[in-house]
């Protein structure tokens, strides 16, 4: 027996509330972040991820207060992302109690930020989030995915697999990979994307986007080769508990922390 595959509930937070969107839009309220964190912790979540999707910068400090409150009560790793633009933002989140900071748009705008942040605080706390969308390959080319930024609104022209490799080389300690095509659809992870990225890098990959049932979590690990699976709506609305998800994965031969 060795390392367990991780289940990570994701909390999208805006204006102090947890919300969930479909294809990155159409938000629905899901509750209080501290209360939800405590519930997932009790159910055996392996980590928690918070994505601050607050549009304006006015309310940015709200996430720091939420993280402080969660970190005083929940003793599992916390990842926080959203609006991280400079090393100073990383420092503020770590000091508030985050264990890892997830960087997305700013990594594309300024790849050196990853090197700088990893150099300062270590690769173990720098997660690069990649939002990827399938694009039709040229000629005989098969699967290709493009990196998008700004919450999925802006195409970058970057190839997701190559981008993941570059981020690893600059010091990313983990990749949080979201399929924009699948996010919110409940049709399962984009397994080809997940496997392409996971097989291309040495650092752990978290599969994200599209989980609608527990079999999808199993597929993400066994077919997508992900080290961790992230989901939001199947947990937020009480359809499944983390415990149920872990038991299901264990029944399918995946090592989990029960």
């Amino acid at each position, binding site marked *: 027996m060795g390392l367990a595959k991780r289940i990570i509930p994701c909390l999208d937070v805006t204006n102090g509330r947890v919300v969930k969107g479909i294809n990155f839009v159409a938000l629905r309220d899901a509750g209080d972040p501290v209360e939800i964190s405590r519930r997932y912790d009790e159910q055996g979540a392996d980590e928690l991820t918070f994505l601050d999707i607050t549009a304006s910068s006015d309310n940015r400090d709200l996430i720091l207060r939420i993280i402080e409150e969660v970190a005083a009560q929940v003793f599992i790793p916390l990842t926080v992302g959203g609006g991280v633009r400079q090393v100073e933002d990383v420092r503020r989140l770590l000091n508030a109690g985050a264990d890892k900071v997830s960087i997305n748009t700013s990594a594309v705008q300024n790849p050196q930020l990853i090197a700088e942040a990893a150099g300062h605080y270590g690769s173990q706390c720098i997660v690069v989030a990649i939002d990827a969308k399938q694009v039709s390959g040229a000629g005989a080319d098969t699967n290709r995915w493009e990196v998008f930024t700004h919450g999925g609104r802006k195409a970058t022209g970057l190839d997701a697999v190559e981008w993941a490799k570059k981020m690893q080389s600059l010091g990313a300690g983990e990749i949080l990979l979201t399929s924009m095509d699948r996010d919110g659809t409940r049709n399962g992870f984009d397994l080809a994307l997940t496997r392409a990225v996971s097989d291309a890098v040495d650092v752990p990959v978290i599969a994200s986007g599209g989980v609608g049932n527990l079999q999808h979590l199993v597929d993400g690990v066994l077919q997508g080769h992900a*080290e961790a699976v992230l989901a939001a709506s199947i947990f937020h609305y009480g359809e499944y508990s983390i415990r149920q998800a872990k038991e299901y994965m264990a029944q399918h031969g995946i090592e989990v922390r029960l």
Partner: protein
Amino acid sequence: MTDIAIIDYGMGNLRSVSKALEHVAPNASVVVTSDPVVVRQAARVVFPGQGAMPNCMHEMDARGLRDAVLDAAASKPFLGICLGLQMLFESSEEGNVQGLGILPGKVRHFPPAVAMQDANGQRLKVPHMGWNQVHQAIEHPLWQGITTDARFYFVHSYYVETANPEPVAAYSFYPFQFTCAVAKDNIFAVQFHPEKSHAAGLTLLGNFVRWEPNFTTKASQIRA
């Protein structure tokens, strides 16, 4: 007097460590400090660390903390966490840097992911990140109330290879067996993060806060 000093040499976030200690010892004074005097006066010392070992050694020395760390490791309940375990050894492959040399052995890098596979034939990634089983090798007050094979949270790319089996307090597999905890006299040090390891981690920290180690003659001489 400070009950528990968490040594801060500027490498990594110590808030989680202090919050977890405050949680298990609500009446204790827990201080995050880079002041050697405070470290020397504390009843117990926690020696954490994140990032790269050459930077850790450099930052520790830059703050004049080396002697205070050595003194604490020789004289009072001492808990090393992550890099705070690795730095106790003689040397590391990471930047070929010298460690504190309190325990014989060296720090080695995991082989590249391509060389390691799990039972499903899937490549094992580096860093070793997540919840792994901790197999207790000895009986120890810090293991009290923790089942052997309990899972703790790890995140590291280097592991310690002790020169002899004596200080090994626990081991894990990734995929080969490696030492994840050591114990010697008043020193206990772990590769995993008890402050992030839920109930098992809090139990270990609670055990540390209450631990009254049997000091060796050598340690008490140094103290005198």
